[in-house]
């Protein structure tokens, strides 16, 4: 497995492989984004994207059906959209509706179109659709008073079948220690608050909605309070059940949560520079499944 050291001059804040696992994008406090081509063990730096005026927090690849497109968000309050065409990377759009650091970006399930969710420290989340005619129509929602630290889409519940109603949802976590679930209302064309989940005693740092819909929907939230909570909901309706990942607190703050594509394994990382993996056993308890250290 490839190991890339010192890709950036400063701290790395995100690293994401594209849909096919061939391209790796990393972003850093050095305000740049680097694109690597990964082939087995080998990797090759193909591009350094600069354009942000502050540290770049997160990056996200769009579904390949939209082209080779990368979204990045930064402390400068902007979300930039980059596109590769014929080996050349260009910045194709700027999404600048936020007045403070944008802490997370995520593309919606591709069934919804080129829809981007951005969460910002100005307390708002924005959903912006990049339409085919080149226009955007951002929807900005006041989500968490002090700041939104992360936002994550729910997986698409039905196939790309236009006549059935899609339950389009996402979850946000904020500096008000709350986790909120939002639902798209087709009549008002707005996102409305569906649930507010209370459980953390400090800032919620990351939220991750499990990409798979098996028995139930899962949301993992990690917080500055050294805990991770798994929220689950049956059949996409009703109340959310709160399950602490483990009874005792983690040794340090938790920063990041990530589900594997089929929703089996949860990877957590935090201030102790350590990655832990978790899976649910048959009784519905969460057990450690591995650990990665530098």
């Amino acid at each position: 497995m490839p190991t890339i050291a010192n890709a950036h001059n400063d701290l790395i804040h995100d690293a994401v492989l594209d849909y096919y696992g061939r391209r790796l994008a990393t972003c850093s406090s050095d305000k740049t984004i680097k694109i690597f081509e990964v082939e087995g063990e080998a990797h090759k730096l193909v591009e350094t994207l600069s354009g942000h005026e502050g540290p770049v927090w997160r990056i996200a690849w769009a579904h390949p059906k939209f082209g080779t497109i990368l979204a990045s968000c930064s402390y400068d309050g902007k979300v930039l959209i980059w596109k590769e065409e014929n080996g050349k990377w260009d910045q194709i759009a700027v999404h600048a509706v936020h007045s403070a650091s944008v802490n997370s970006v995520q593309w919606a399930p591709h069934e919804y179109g080129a829809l981007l969710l951005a969460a910002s420290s100005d307390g708002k989340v924005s959903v912006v659709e990049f339409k085919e005619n080149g226009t955007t129509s951002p929807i900005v929602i006041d989500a968490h008073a002090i700041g939104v630290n992360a936002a994550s889409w729910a997986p698409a519940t039905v196939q790309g079948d236009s006549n059935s109603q899609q339950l389009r949802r996402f979850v946000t976590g904020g500096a008000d220690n709350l986790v909120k679930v939002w639902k798209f209302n087709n009549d008002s064309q707005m996102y409305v608050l569906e649930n507010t989940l209370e459980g953390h005693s400090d800032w919620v740092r990351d939220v991750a909605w499990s990409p798979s819909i098996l028995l139930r929907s899962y949301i993992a939230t990690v917080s500055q309070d050294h805990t991770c909570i798994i929220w689950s909901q049956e059949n996409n309706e009703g109340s959310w059940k709160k399950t602490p990942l483990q009874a005792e607190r983690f040794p340090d703050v938790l920063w990041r949560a990530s589900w594997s594509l089929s929703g089996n394994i949860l990877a957590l990382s935090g201030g102790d520079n350590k990655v832990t993996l978790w899976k649910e056993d048959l009784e519905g308890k969460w057990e450690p499944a591995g650990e990665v250290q530098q």
Partner: protein
Amino acid sequence: MVGYVGGDPYQSPSFGKSLSLRVDGGVNALSINPSGRDVVLASKQGLHIIDLDDPFSPPRWLRHVTPWQVADVQWSPHPAKPYWVVSTSNQKAIIWNLAKASSDAIEHVLHKHFRAITDINFSPQHPDILATCSIDTYVHAWDIRSPQRPFYTTSGWRSGASQVKWSFNDQNVLASAHGNDVCIWDLRKGSTPLGKLVGHGSSVNSVDFNRFKRTELMTGSNDGSVKFWDYSKSCNEPIKTVRTDFPIWRGRYLPFGEGCCLMPSVGGYNSVYVASLAKKEGTEGVNDSKLQPIYAFKGHNDRVTDFVWRSRNRCDSEGCDREFQLVTWSKDCDLRLWPVPEAVYDRVNFNRHQELGESIPSYEYVTYNREPDIAKHQTGSHSKRIRENFVSTSGLKSKKDVNHISWLSGVRMNYDSSPENIFKERTLQNLGEEVSSLGHKFPKVVFEKISVSTGELIITLNGPCSQNDPDQYIFLRIDVKVPPEYPSKGYPPVFSIEDNGNLSNNRRESLNQQLREICTKCTDLGLYCLEPCLRLFLGEKVNLEELGQNDEPLLNFEIANQLAMEDLSSLPSSEDHTEYLSDSSTSESEEKGNSSVLNLGVNLDGQINRDLTFDSTPVPTECGAIWSPNGTLLCFFASEGKQDRKQQAMLRLASRDTIKHQNGYYKGGIHKSKMLTDNTTPDLTKVQRPKRYVETIPSATNSLGKSTHLTSEEESESEYSDSFEDDWSDILVNDIGVRTKLPALRGRVSKTFESVNSESGKTTESKKVKNMVITKDFSHLIPDRKDLALEFRFTDAPQGELARHNALVAEKYGLEEKSHCWQIFSDLLMTNEEIDPYNLIWDNHPMGIKWFIKEVLSYFERKNDLQMLAMLGAVAANTAASVLATTNTVKLDPNQDNKKMKSTINFNPNENPNSWRTDLPSYLSLNNGVAPSFFESSKYRYSPDEISIKSEDYFSPKHYNNTSTIAPTVSPPISNTAVSATIAHNQHTVSRIPNVTIELVDDDVLSAIRQPVRSLLDQNDAAKFRFYSYQYAKLLYTWGLPMQRAELLKISFESTHKGTLDTDSRISSDNRDIFGEMETNWEENRQREANFHSCNYCGLKVTRNIFLCQGCEHVMHASCARDWWAQSEQCASGCGCLCPEVLRTLQV
């Protein structure tokens, strides 16, 4: 103050001021109302009408969404038609009537050009005449009284026309630019040009007639020159040429004096230049010169796309006055108004107070920014309305077109009319800016109504104003009246709190009292006071003493005034300040006095701290793990070195309290942290990590300060300050677009990074690893495997064989559990396939196949094994495969059928309809879609029966005793057990069993479809399996297995289809006719068409070289189609269409 919105340009609050308006949305063209009140901006979204006298009210938006950029927009210059605006929409020109409702404002569409229109020009003489030109080389002149076709047409033939202009003085003459040449046309002389101005070395972008000299015009070209011509004298020799360093996009005569205004298409510092054309002594005879601008309007940070002049004039007993203001639109999304300095008037020999020979038409000074009262103007013909609805997507959103607060924040007005420092100073200038800043600062406070021009605000908020319980929040609606003179002395805003049962009178009184005090105090000092008032409502203590000193800088949170920086830094952090600040900043300000070396840095810090007060950006992630779609885990870590440093920073933060009180700061700091690092580990857990990003910044620099000598720090500090200042001025010059608190941070941020870099420059000599990205393969944890996906089969064979094959595959990979599962499944299926009349009894039996599927489903669900779930579902649901198998091998004999029927009685009646439904797709794919409606309706008819017999014991002997025969067509409600006993062995006469299934099996229609296939899944499970296979299909796609994906989706598509049919039939009544069903089918198809922009094989968008099936209209890339048809006969979308067959029949 902006208090007036009236009907006189001389009371305009924006005339003579500089103003900047941010308008997002890709606006490309600009025009102005001749009265100078409104401007119209045109973009792909439609038209925006902005009232320049009330820039704070959001624009009126006339929606017209097109994929084409609007090339030009023109406001009619005639007082007769002040409400007409013409805009281009590719090859059409659209005439809008702004006096009509926005949804119905299109008055005419001029359509004769066959390629994009590039320019429109109203005739200066006739309100109804205008000219258009297009890249189709034609120039058309239109009379709008008969808009069907142009009354005059000419063409430059060789190259497209870029500009067309009417002569100001000769109503029959117009000029158009074609490539490098300009043609002069006379309406009376047909399409023979009056003259052709030849001389430019590159294409001509701009043509403008002289207002006063009949036969003179100027042209501007990409060759960087502006030429002035007199076509009555010579068409080959310009009378004058002015050369510039940049290609000219627009060059026009000034509407006043003798001068011209030039605008570059690229370069030229994004400015608009004014040059004088007045004859100077000693320059006669020189007709080729360099551009010597007498003035430049500089400040946009992207290229200016158009400019217009706003004018006002007055001629009365006191004398005459004419005044102009430049309005520019730039690609940086700013609309700007620039005052014209007096000196410019002088240099172009223009006397503002000179009486004009001719009278200027008087325009009604009204705005079209508001929606007209006449809601529906039904004057337009019906066909026009349809057309309009067709082109624009009106009705998408209702009212909230523009967010008022964000619109407000884009408005900048400057009272200082000297343009040198426009757009630079960033203090609050007016109520609009104050409201906008409040809106950003207090997101929870809702501004229900904002009317800056009249000074009315309605604010709603939840405040802790309850007398008894300080934690109880009361909803308050507050009406604020702001006098126009606000915030000058003696004009405080008036607050009135709406009556509210929760608010006690005492409390209201005291609130009002406090509000009055605050307002009076602030306005006496000329300060804006809404913020402290809002804070009061929100339950904060407002200290009247400090208001005077602090409030304005506090309010001015966006970008600090550069000059005021000193003052700000010396500002002691007041009480309500520190509430928000981390203690780091307090210590910072205490440190300030300690070292003169650090002063500058601290100044900067002080500067930023204020901005950072509200910055809640969390500490950045330094380590993380992200799953990639292919099952590998991507981890990134901070380096050891970084870790150390961070810990130090943390320690420092933790020990700050103690440090604070020590005089020798550095000594103390080092001492402390050394002490702590010695016994770090136990302490670490207790250390409170910094939470906010901004808290880590100072600590980083301070730790740098510790690690380097003071002298080097001094150097570096000065370096930073330079770079900071550079950044700062950059921001001020270039970055006006960013009107947030962020730019102020930029300098700070870059500074930190610089310091980090310089540090790393020192330390990395040891080649220390600073950060690391590791990919770890954890695919063993994930049950879904690509190798299995490649080998598992789920179509093209009888179910039993498929399961057996999969069992072998699983065994090969050593997956015992899965292998066993498949094996059992296979055995069950095999027995199922045997024509054993009694085997179906086992279906619900604890050892039966249905039970097995349910168990397996719940097991693998708990195991989160998507692959197994999807594959099992696919095999179980893949009735299509078994239909093929059975129809080939099994002949229906009545006896067998009969027995099957018998066995179906044993189904739980509740499940029966489900099993039927799941069967439907297979019929659907085999039949024409009419039959299912029969099934559905007939089934529906019987549903009450099923419920009624729910608890019956079918094995009781009386079933066989009472035999009554009921004709299949009759369907009375059956509620006794007698009927359920109709299971006679006489198949054609007996059809009344309590159970739907049987009825249907014996139906005539059904018998035409041979043998129904029982499904192994009940409906809930089928729905689940549908999800699973859809999910799994995604997984297959990421694994690069589109073939398998399409195969799988084929199955799931069928079940989806069933799903929709299901709901249809449930909603509809049982006597629904066939046509109803047909119609829904048809609609469904139409929706599909819309969806099929993408290939049904690989899922990517199709562009060219497509394969389109004529039968089902599904598309594929040509290359994908080749792959697919090599292996399959059926459509890749899973619609069941045999596309090659269709093709063959069509060809025959």
